[in-house]
C-alpha cells in the first residue's frame, strides 16, 4: 500500500535535494512562494504547458526532479521573464528551468521537444566554431538535421529576394578566446 490518501503532505517537511541545490547555488528560495499564481496567470505559454509555473515551484518543493526534467514545459518555456517579473517573492523560475535543462542535458535525458533542443545545440555549436551566429548557416544546418527542407522554403526565397539573407556573416577573429569559454564551462559543470 502507498501512503494514505487522506494524509496531508507537508511540503516544508519533505526532503528535496533540488530545493537545497537551488538555494545554495543561486539563493532561490522556493519556500517563499505565496502560491498566488501570478506566474501562471501571466505565463506567455502557460496555456500549452503540462506544468504551469506555480506547479513547477511546487514540484521543486516535492523534489520531483525526474518529472521536471522530463516535462514538456521545460522546452517550450520562452524565457520571457514574465513569471519572475511578477512574482511578489522574486522567485527566479526561468533560472530554475535553465538549471534543470542543463542538468537534463548532462544526464542525456532527451528533450521533449527535439526540434527546440536541436536548434539550441546547433546554435551554440556554431558560436563555438565562429564566435557568432550566421542565420543562413544555422538554418541550413537545422534543415539538414531535421530533413524538412521544404518547410519555410517560401519564406527563404522571399527573404533572399529582399536581400535580407547574408551568407557571408563575419566571424570572430580571436575565436580561440570564445572556444576557451566552452572548455572551462563544460569542465566546471561536470565537477
Amino acid at each position, binding site marked *: 500500500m502507498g501512503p494514505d490518501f487522506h494524509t496531508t503532505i507537508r511540503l516544508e517537511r519533505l526532503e528535496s535535494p533540488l530545493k537545497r541545490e537551488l538555494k545554495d547555488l543561486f539563493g532561490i528560495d522556493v519556500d517563499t512562494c505565496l502560491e498566488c499564481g501570478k506566474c501562471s496567470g501571466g505565463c506567455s505559454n502557460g496555456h500549452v504547458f503540462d506544468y504551469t509555473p506555480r506547479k513547477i515551484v511546487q514540484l521543486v518543493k516535492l523534489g520531483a526532479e525526474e518529472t521536471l526534467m522530463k516535462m514538456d514545459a521545460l522546452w517550450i518555456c520562452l*524565457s520571457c521573464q514574465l513569471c519572475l517579473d511578477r512574482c511578489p517573492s522574486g522567485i527566479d523560475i526561468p533560472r530554475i528551468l535553465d538549471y534543470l535543462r542543463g542538468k537534463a542535458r548532462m544526464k542525456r535525458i532527451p528533450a521533449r521537444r527535439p526540434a527546440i533542443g536541436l536548434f539550441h545545440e546547433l546554435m551554440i555549436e556554431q558560436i563555438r566554431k565562429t564566435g557568432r551566429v550566421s542565420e543562413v548557416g544555422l538554418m541550413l544546418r537545422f534543415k539538414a538535421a531535421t530533413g524538412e527542407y521544404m518547410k519555410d522554403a517560401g519564406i527563404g526565397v522571399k527573404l533572399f529576394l529582399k536581400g535580407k539573407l547574408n551568407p557571408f556573416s563575419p566571424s570572430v577573429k580571436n575565436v580561440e578566446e*570564445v572556444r576557451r569559454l566552452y572548455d572551462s564551462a563544460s569542465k566546471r559543470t561536470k565537477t
Partner: protein
Amino acid sequence: MTPMDIAYYPGCSLHGIAREYGRSAALVCRRLGIRLVEVEDWNCCGATAAHSLDRELALGLNARNLSIVNRMNLDRVTTPCAGCFSRMKGCSHELSNSKEMREGMEKRIGAPLAKLPEVSHLLQVMTESVGLKGLADAVVRPLKGLRLAAYYGCLLTRPRAIARFDDPEQPTSMDHILRAMGADTVRWSHKAECCGGAFAASQTDIVVDLGGQVLEAARQAGADALVVACPMCQVNLDTRQQAIEEARSVRYNLPVTYFTQLMGMAYGFSSRQMGLDRMLISPLPLLRRAGLD
C-alpha cells in the same frame, strides 16, 4: 554639440537579417550627435540557446564582450537588440552581485571585470541621453497621419530588477519617441507580451499562436503598423504573418518596422536609406498614403 561616444554592440542579426536596423540606427544616431563605436571583435551573446543549455557559457560569452568595452575605455555600451540587451545586462548584474562569480570569470577570460560598463538598449540612449526634446528638435518631416502600435516584447523591460528601464507592464518610451516624431500611437494590450521569437524556426506553431495574439491586439486597437526595437520581434511578426493570417483567417497586412527607420523618415532620410523596402509586408503604401514617401 560634442559627439557622445558609446560602445555599440550590434549582435548577430544586425549583420544578417536585420541589416536595415543597423543602418538606420547608425544614420539616426549620427544625426543626433551620438557616435556608435562598434565593440571590437565582439562575439554572439549566446541568445536563448546558450543560457538554456549552459548558463556558465552564457555568462562567459557576455563577460568577454563587456571586458572588451572596458579595454576600449568606454563606460557605456548600447545594443539595438532586446535579446542581446537582456543577456548582456543580466551578465553585468550577476557579475556585480557576486564577488565569487566575478573572480572566477576574471580568471577564465583573463581580464578585469571589477568595473563594468553601463548596458543600455538603444531606446534608452535615445530617451535618457538625448531626451525627447532633442529628438523632436531634429524632426524635419513629422510623421503625421500614422497610427502606430509600439511593441516592446518581452526582454526589453523584464525582469524589472535587471532591465531597470521603462515600465515592465505598460512601457511608454517608444510611444513617446514616435509621438515626438509627429506620429500617433495607439493604446493597446500586448505591448510587452512575448512573440515567441526564440522558437521562430524550431517551433512554428508557438510563434503563430503568440504572434497571432499580438497582431490581433494591434488590429483591434486600430494600428496601421507595428513598431519594434528588436530584430527577433521584427523577423517573427513579419515573416510569420502570412502563416498567422492563414491560421486565423484574418487579413492583417500590418507592416512591422524598426523605430529607428521611422525616426529616420521624420529626420528626412529616404525610405530606401532606411531600408523600408526590405520588409516582407511593405510599409511603403502606408507611408505614401501619409505623404511621407
